[in-house]
């Protein structure tokens, strides 16, 4: 449904996108993951025809967006970072405007009612958009993208600025939409793409780091597990003991400390649960373990692991970086 190949975008001397290529099939949810300023928005803006690229092509449903923009744009529903809504219009007036703008030919009332129902904005239809909360505005933005039932939906950071309940609602909505549309969403929150997307594309500094199925990414992330452990006992000796526990690959002292306990970060081999070993080893020495907590993996960790694995792959193939 979407074919992006060799996209390059340069702003002055700053390379915003460096040879990005990927594809997305029908009814697939693809998550764009990367920190702020990674090039996610630039890429999405090029895919929707808002910006042009210095090199490379974008094809939506086989139509090149730079050659036949009007035809390609008809296939896309786009929600930019800031929902493109007019405060001086009511929700239904606005959707009516978008309907005409996109030149749709459905039963207007039925179609717009359906869009409102899916995005759950039917109860605010007659209110001015400027009086709506951020969450509702975001949903009006999503509704706008759905008008005309486009095959491809592109959402740029759809959950930014929403409260936790709204975030869950929007994620559920995206999952539902993915059953009938090709959805591309961008985010800088790892758990978000993990919970929504079928495939994850990781971008950093304009470069594509990974393009993998979500379960494969999860596997990479979970290859080694990190734990936060609190132990009462003499710091140096405890650390030595931790390092010698079977299954532990790395241990270090954290700056955090309570009255008589120190906190340690411990990493273990992939797929090996060393927590019992650790407990018995400490029990033997009479150093009480007062907490073991699994540490969540941050986006930075993922980047480090992916870049590390990439460079080691290259080294293994005898390539140069």
């Amino acid at each position, binding site marked *: 449904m979407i074919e992006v190949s060799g996209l390059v975008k340069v702003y002055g001397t700053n390379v915003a996108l460096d040879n990005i290529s990927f594809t997305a099939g029908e009814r697939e949810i693809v998550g764009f993951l990367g920190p702020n300023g990674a090039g996610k928005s630039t890429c999405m*803006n090029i895919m929707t025809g808002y910006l042009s690229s210095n090199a490379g092509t974008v094809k939506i449903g086989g139509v090149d967006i730079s050659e036949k923009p009007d035809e390609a744009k008809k296939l896309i529903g*786009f929600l930019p*970072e800031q929902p493109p809504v007019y405060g001086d219009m009511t929700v239904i007036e606005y959707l009516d405007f978008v309907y005409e703008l996109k030149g749709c030919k459905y039963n207007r009332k039925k179609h717009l009612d359906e869009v409102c129902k899916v995005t759950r904005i039917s109860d605010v239809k007659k209110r001015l958009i400027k009086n709506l909360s951020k969450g509702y505005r975001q949903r009006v933005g999503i509704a706008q993208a759905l008008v005309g039932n486009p095959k491809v939906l592109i959402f740029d950071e759809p959950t930014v600025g929403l409260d936790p309940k709204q975030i869950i609602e929007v994620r559920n909505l995206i999952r539902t939409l993915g059953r009938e549309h090709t959805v591309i969403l961008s985010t800088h929150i790892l758990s978000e793409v993990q919970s929504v997307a079928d495939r994850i594309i990781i971008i950093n500094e304009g470069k594509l780091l990974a393009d993998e199925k979500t379960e494969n990414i999860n596997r990479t992330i979970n290859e080694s597990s990190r734990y936060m452990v609190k132990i009462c006992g003499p710091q140096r000796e405890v650390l030595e003991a931790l390092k010698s526990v079977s299954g532990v690959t790395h241990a270090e002292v954290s700056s955090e400390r309570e009255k008589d306990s120190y906190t340690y970060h411990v990493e273990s081999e992939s797929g090996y649960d060393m927590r019992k070993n650790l407990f018995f080893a400490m029990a033997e020495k009479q150093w009480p373990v007062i907490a073991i907590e699994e540490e969540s993996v941050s986006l930075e960790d993922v980047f480090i692991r992916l870049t590390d694995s990439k460079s080691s792959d290259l080294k293994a193939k005898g390539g140069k970086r």
Partner: protein
Amino acid sequence: MQAIYKREMRSYFTTPTGYIFAAVFLCASGFLFALCTLQMQTSDVSAYFQFLMYAYIIVIPLLTMKSFAEEKKNGTEQLLLTSPVSLTSMVLAKFLAAFTMFVGTLLVSSLAMAVLGLYSEPNWARVIGCTVGILLVGICFIAIGLFVSSLTDNQFVAAIGTIALLAGLVVVAIINGLIDNYFLRLVLDWISIYSRYMNFTYGIFDIASAVYYVSICVVFLFLTVRVYEKRRLA
């Protein structure tokens, strides 16, 4: 294109913009009419129309300042630019909406001419000539205003920029009288919006001037389209 035109027209009436424009326009024209014809006890309207052009320097930017600047600021231009509508139709729709507002208000202000006709016998050829002239100047100014509005995301900057540009174009005519160099005068005279307008106020329908105004309008609308094209490539 129709959708954008309709939305634009609606926004003139659902926000204060349209009302402020109409109010300032009608106040200025009413005041000038009273000053130039009623006070002077004359049915000659050329002075009124000459001054009306100066008033446009302030009035027209009120109409055009938010056209593109506001869209950019609110991020709604992303909706317009990613929808299956060409840049030319987008710019034309905005222009036509501003033009409709302008013509509507101009017609209301022309009631003054009807009043004049009731109590005296004005030279109708001159009245019509002047009205056509001011209409042409109007479309020219609107196109310039839209162009400046497309350059910024701040309405205020757009307004001030347009006023400066329009005032500059009119000042060219005034400087013209002070220059000795014949060729420079010829060139300045040629580009001056003001001096071409004078023919209309004398009751002469000058086809060359009409073409000139329409061309200026087209050039600035084209430049507005180019601004958007360039931004896409940036």
